[in-house]
């Protein structure tokens, strides 16, 4: 194997996430963690329902 290539891959600079994005994601994750565990499946079901409703209305708008 090409050692130079290995080294070049290893030395690719870090691509840091935008601090504002990092903070937003952190806050959202912390809110998820704050949900009591039994509520998680319920919250997931609600989100799925909302998403499904949106997908159906979007698809029907597309084919209208």
């Amino acid at each position, binding site marked *: 194997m090409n050692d130079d290539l290995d080294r070049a891959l290893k030395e690719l600079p870090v*691509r840091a996430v935008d601090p504002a994005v990092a903070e937003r994601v952190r806050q959202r994750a912390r809110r998820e963690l704050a949900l009591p565990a039994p509520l998680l499946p319920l919250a997931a079901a609600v989100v799925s329902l909302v998403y499904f409703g949106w997908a159906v209305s979007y698809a029907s708008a597309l084919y209208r």
Partner: protein
Amino acid sequence: MVESEPDLLALLRARDPRGFELCYARHRDAIYGFLLRLSGQRAIAEDLFQETWLRLARKGAELRPGSDLRAWLFTVARNAYRSLLRSRHPQAREEELDELLAPGDAAQGVELSELERALLALPLEERELLLLVGVEGFAQDELARMLGVAAPALRQRVTRARARLAQALERGPASAPRPRRIHER
């Protein structure tokens, strides 16, 4: 002070926010960089970055003791990218997916190094392997377990991907089949 992986896993399993914070601080830039170099698009990388970390927040408590957290995170990120490609192009063949997502206009792109351009020009599977082995430093046996493939087969694929990358670099950027840049937005 939590230093060891078992301690970190114990915190995550207990839904202790400190577990998430520590894990986030350790791995967030690596996960973002992986997604950015995998997709070549900043907006997609940011969306999938969020998806990956929200999944940890939701599923961290289900991780088994002894789980490889870093491998788990990269697997989630990789699967999120593949799911996105598949959701956008359900009829496309596997090898076409990546190409279909590639943006055409690079006007707002960030300049990439020659090596990054060459990586983006590789087929998705080869790019994944080189990012995980070459950039992130996963051992090939570890990666074989992660991807659920036999170690000899994986070693062969990595060798082939490296050879293709080396060829692309030797020929220079003009010969890259799909030159792309990372898009800001």
